[in-house]
């Protein structure tokens, strides 16, 4: 696909899990295309380091699996950006490490996977829905991208906690996409494929990295998808005269 260099110019993006892997690559891709990004991650030092190297990026420390963090995070995100056009729920947890059969999975590990992969995106999306829908009313559309996995569909043995939580996220995305269509907010669920990321290394340390997708390639595809969804909504809104 051919890109003009600044086709997300002025777009305000909130992204979780931005200090490594796909999140970091996607942030760089979005910034290259002109977006302003506020990212959320748990580790204060890594947040500071990533933000320091990127002038158009704001780093926010917080844990999306923690209910009490969600509104303070939403406040900082919308406060700093002045609005939110795109939310990327990317932060993910595997559950038990190393991966375990469901029957061997501790309840606490299962809960961690659900809290990070399902409840966190639900809560943060809900807390930012005011900002997203405001952007949709003012600019014609807004997009939520939930990062999914083939484990959300295929019942891979050993991936129980992760697969069940991602499956829930995928279904949540599909329902929310229908419910929010009237608000011109699209909710996407996309599988980036097997990538050479820290999360993948935790899950399958034996895989040869050269056989895995590079995060930058997945990031380009995701940025394309965000752009396409956003522009489809906003072009349509323009045609309909929503912005009058």
């Amino acid at each position: 696909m051919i890109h003009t260099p600044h086709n997300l110019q002025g777009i305000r993006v909130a992204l979780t899990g931005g200090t490594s892997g796909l999140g970091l690559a996607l942030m760089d891709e979005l910034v290259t295309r002109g977006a302003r990004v506020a990212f959320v991650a748990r580790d204060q030092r890594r947040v500071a380091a990533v933000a320091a190297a990127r002038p158009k990026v704001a780093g926010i420390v917080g844990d999306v699996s923690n209910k009490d963090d969600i509104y303070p995070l939403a406040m900082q995100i919308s406060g700093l950006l002045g609005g939110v056009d795109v939310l990327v729920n990317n932060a993910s947890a595997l559950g038990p490490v190393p991966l375990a059969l469901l029957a061997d999975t501790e309840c606490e590990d299962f809960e961690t996977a659900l809290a990070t992969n399902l409840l966190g995106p639900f809560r943060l999306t809900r807390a930012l829905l005011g900002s997203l829908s405001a952007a949709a009313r003012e600019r014609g559309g807004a997009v939520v991208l939930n990062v999914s996995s083939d484990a959300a569909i295929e019942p891979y043995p050993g991936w129980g906690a992760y697969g069940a939580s991602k499956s829930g996220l995928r279904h949540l995305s599909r329902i929310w996409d229908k419910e929010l269509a009237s608000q011109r907010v699209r909710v996407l669920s996309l599988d980036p494929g097997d990538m050479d990321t820290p999360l993948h290394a935790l899950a399958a340390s034996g895989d040869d990295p050269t056989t895995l997708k590079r995060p930058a390639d997945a990031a380009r595809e995701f940025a394309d998808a965000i752009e396409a969804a956003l522009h489809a909504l906003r072009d349509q809104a323009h045609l309909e005269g929503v912005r009058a």
Partner: protein
Amino acid sequence: MTMRAATLPVQRPHDARLLVVDRHGHIEHRPRHAFVELLRPGDCVIANDAATLPASLHGIHRRSDAVIEIRLAGRQSLDPQDVKRFKAVVFGAGDFHTPTEARAAPPRLAPGDRVSFGKLEATIVRMLDHPRFVELQFHADAARIWEMLAQQGKPVQYAHLHEALALWDVWTPIAAQPVAFEPPSAGFVLDWRSIDALQARSIPFATLTHAAGLSSTGDAVLDQRLPLDEPYRIPAATAALIAATRARQGRVVAIGTTVVRALEHAASGNGVVHAGDGVATQRIGPQTQLRAVDVIVSGTHEPDTSHYALLRAFTDTLTLQGVTDELEAHRYRTHEFGDSVWIERRACVVQGARTSPLDPRERERCPTLGIGLADSHRKDSAMPAVPSSRPHRAGPTLRKVPTVSDELTPVAPSPDKETSHDTRNHPADHPDPAADRRPAKLAV
């Protein structure tokens, strides 16, 4: 008897009620979820999408080493980077559990005093003509200030709520940019189902962002200065919707006093609501001629508040007294998590060819009747000025259940547009007077 406080932070209790005051002063009781049914084709609904800052901060006044509470109360603009300077009200040690008016005073404050909030420092830049009202400057960049607010700030709250509020208690479902110092709580009436229901009825919904300020400081002198100047932003789409609503003679329904303040300020130039940023500086009260808003949906307020004064722009004192009596008699809950009122802008009726209205209530709402205006309306003097169902007595009328005949009998022609001194003056209001001869459907 005083009004009953809502003491639980539930935004949309299932039994929430709505007291409806129509443009003739009739009062009805409705379940609050029925508010969508009060809208007519052609109307639009405008809400304030401001999210609420955790504006209460505890810090140390360095010179005295005293613990103080600072309640952020105002800033210059809505710019996300413009968070270094705030107006703030200062209290001594203590918190919301103590009624605001009983709070300890802070130590003596002076320009140059430092206040520390954990690692973050601020300086009192100047006193704002009151020993507890200051301008404060934080010494950090915007990201650090937002972080400090997120970590240390608490929502401003009052003693009628016993438990500490979290941000999710005070953010309306549509809360977007965090710029309000207290929640624009009329917006608690909204949820996504009701917004969908509006859409299903083809009632357009739009928002503006208005930095709702403190409702009380606990100090009678300071309270006199409320509301403070409040920055707002009106999106182009919202301004366009209001213009379109005007053009088709629909009503602009404002969810909350802050929406009224923003729209009326934005319309104060030529009566047209302009898009863009502004700072609402005006006070709205009985002498205000509303130019943009036709209906207000609001929480219930006690008579000594600036919120209440604003309602007097919509209807007269006697009707509002009747509202207060009804709210008390029916034990409506007050304060931010309480029940709601729907108040339509009073029809300002000029009876016959008189230059002053017969009913003293009308006189209050028609303060500037002059000869020229009376002349301009003389040709309409044959119109029945008052619907027959409206009794001539001083107090408001109470009808709990509209009768079939009320709903179906056309009380045409509607008196307020034809024979009134309408306070709005932009041309879109009156493109064709005859076009508004629709039946006055009382109370809905």
